[in-house]
C-alpha cells in the first residue's frame, strides 16, 4: 500500500478513535456515526470470515464434490430462517434444538471432569506431599480446603443461613471478596496498557508525516462541543425571553 493510503488510513483511524472516546464526555453525533459504522464493519468482518472459512470450504466445496451430507445441517440452518415468517416460525425449532442438544451433551462430562473432579483433586493433591512440605505450605493448603468448603456452603440453597450456618457462609463470603478484589486489581494494569497502546497510536498519528491528524481532529471536535453548547444556551435563553 502506498504512502497516501497509509496517511488516509491514519486519519480514518484517528477520527474513529477520537469519535468513540468522545462518548466519555457525552453522547454526540460523532460517536453515533462511529457506533453505526462499527456495527456494519464488525458484521462485515464476521461476514467475510464466515464466507471464506465456512460457506466456501465447508458448505460449497463439499456440495460441488457430491458430498451431500452437509445438506442435513444446511437444512437445519435454513429452518432458522423461518423466523422471518411468523406463521411457520416454529420450524426454526428444528435448528436450535439441534444446537441445544449438542451443547448440553458436551457440557455434562466436560464440566464434571475439569471443573468438578479436577478442582477437588487440585485441593487434595498438594496435601499428598505433606511429609516434605513446610508448615507454612501445609497451612496454605488447609486454608484453600477450608475456604472452598465455606464458599460452597455460601451457595447452599437448602438451609436458611442463620446461626452457625450464617458464620460459615460468612467466611465463604470473605474468600469470595478476596477473589473479587484480587481479580479486579489484577486486571487494572492490563486495561491501562491497552489504553496506553491507543494513546501511543494517537501520538504517532500526531506527527508531521501524518499531517497532524490527531491535533486537527481533536481541535475540530472541541470546537463542535463549544459551538453546540453555546447554541444550546442561546436557544434556552431565547426560549426564556419568549415566555
Amino acid at each position: 500500500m502506498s504512502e497516501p493510503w497509509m496517511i488516509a488510513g491514519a486519519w480514518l483511524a484517528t477520527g474513529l478513535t477520537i469519535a468513540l472516546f468522545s462518548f466519555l464526555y457525552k453522547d454526540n453525533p460523532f460517536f453515533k456515526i462511529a457506533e453505526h459504522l462499527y456495527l456494519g464493519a464488525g458484521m462485515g468482518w464476521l461476514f467475510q470470515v464466515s464466507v471464506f472459512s465456512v460457506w466456501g470450504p465447508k458448505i460449497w466445496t463439499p456440495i460441488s464434490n457430491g458430498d451431500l451430507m452437509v445438506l442435513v445441517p444446511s437444512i437445519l440452518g435454513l429452518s432458522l430462517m423461518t423466523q422471518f415468517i411468523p406463521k411457520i416460525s416454529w420450524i426454526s425449532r428444528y435448528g436450535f434444538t439441534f444446537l441445544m442438544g449438542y451443547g448440553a451433551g458436551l457440557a455434562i462430562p466436560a464440566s464434571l471432569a475439569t471443573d468438578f473432579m479436577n478442582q477437588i483433586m487440585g485441593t487434595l493433591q498438594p496435601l499428598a506431599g505433606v511429609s516434605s512440605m513446610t508448615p507454612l505450605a501445609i497451612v496454605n493448603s488447609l486454608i484453600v480446603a477450608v475456604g472452598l468448603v465455606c464458599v460452597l456452603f455460601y451457595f447452599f440453597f437448602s438451609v436458611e443461613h442463620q446461626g452457625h450456618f450464617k458464620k460459615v457462609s460468612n467466611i465463604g463470603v470473605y474468600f469470595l471478596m478476596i477473589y473479587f478484589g484480587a481479580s479486579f486489581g489484577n486486571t487494572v494494569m492490563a486495561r491501562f496498557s491497552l489504553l496506553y497502546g491507543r494513546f501511543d497510536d494517537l501520538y504517532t498519528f500526531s506527527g508531521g508525516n501524518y499531517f497532524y491528524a490527531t491535533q486537527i481532529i481533536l481541535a475540530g471536535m472541541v470546537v463542535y462541543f463549544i459551538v453546540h453548547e453555546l447554541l444550546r444556551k442561546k436557544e434556552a435563553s431565547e426560549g426564556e425571553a419568549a415566555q
Partner: protein
Amino acid sequence: MKETLQKFFKIDRRWIFLLLTLALFIPVMKPLGLPNKSIAQETERVYKAIDALPPGSFLMLSLDYDPSTKPELHPMATALVRHAFKKNLRVGVVTYVSGSTGLIEEIFSKVSKEYNKVDGVDYVVFPYMPNVVAALTQMASNMYGIYTVDRNGRDVSTMPVLNGIKNYKNMAMVVCVTGTGIMDSWVALVGDKFNVPVAGGVTAISQPGYGPYLQTGQLKGLLGGMKGAAEYEVLLGQPGKGTSGIDALNLGNLLVLVLILTSNIILLVVKFL
C-alpha cells in the same frame, strides 16, 4: 463542610476520565523515567541466556500476539530482536497467530535498518501457520517439511540464514512471546523433549501462572508484561516503548490508589463530623 465533602462522592466521572488521560498520555509524549525497581530475576535470566550465545547462533522467535496485546508484548519482541541483532545472532521468526503478521513486519522493517541486517541473510520470517501442535512436532525432525518458503514466498532452502539449520538440535534457543497458551506447547513439545532452552514473554495477567515452569527450569526466563519489557530495555541500554509504558502504568495505578484512598478518607471524615 459535610455537604461539600459529600459532593466529592458524586463527582462528575468526567473529571476522573480527564485525570486518567493526563496520567497515561503525558508519558507517551515524554517518558518521565520514574524509578523502575531493581530488575526481576526472570528478566535477567532471559537477557543473560541470549547474551551468552556465540555470534552466528540461531535464535528462534515465536511471536504469537495480535493487536489486542500489542502494548505489552510488542516492546518485548522489539527489544529481543534488537538484542539478537546486536549480538550478531541469526534470527528465525515463526508465528501461529494470524493477527501477528503485520506486527512482525513492523519490527523488522524498523530494527533491521538500525543494525544493517538483510532479510534472508541475517534473519528469516516464516509465514503464519494455523496448527501449532502439528508444526512444532514436524519441526522436530525436519523443519522444511512445513516451511518451504518464507513470508514473501521465497524458497528458504538456499537462504544463508538457514545454513545448517534443520531441526531443534541446530537451534541455540527458542523465545516465545505470546498472549495465548502457545508457550505451553513450546515448553511441552519442544523444550522438555529436545533439550532446547525455551524462554518467553507473556502479559502481566498470565505471568503468575508460569511460576511452576520457572521453578523447574522448563522456562529459562520470563518477561512479564510492560514491566518485563521495560526491564529488558534497561538491560539492553535502549529505552523504548516499554520504558515509557511502565511510566504510564505507574502513574495510572497510582491514580487509582489515590482516588480510592481519597474516597475512603472522605467517608471517614463525613462519618465523624
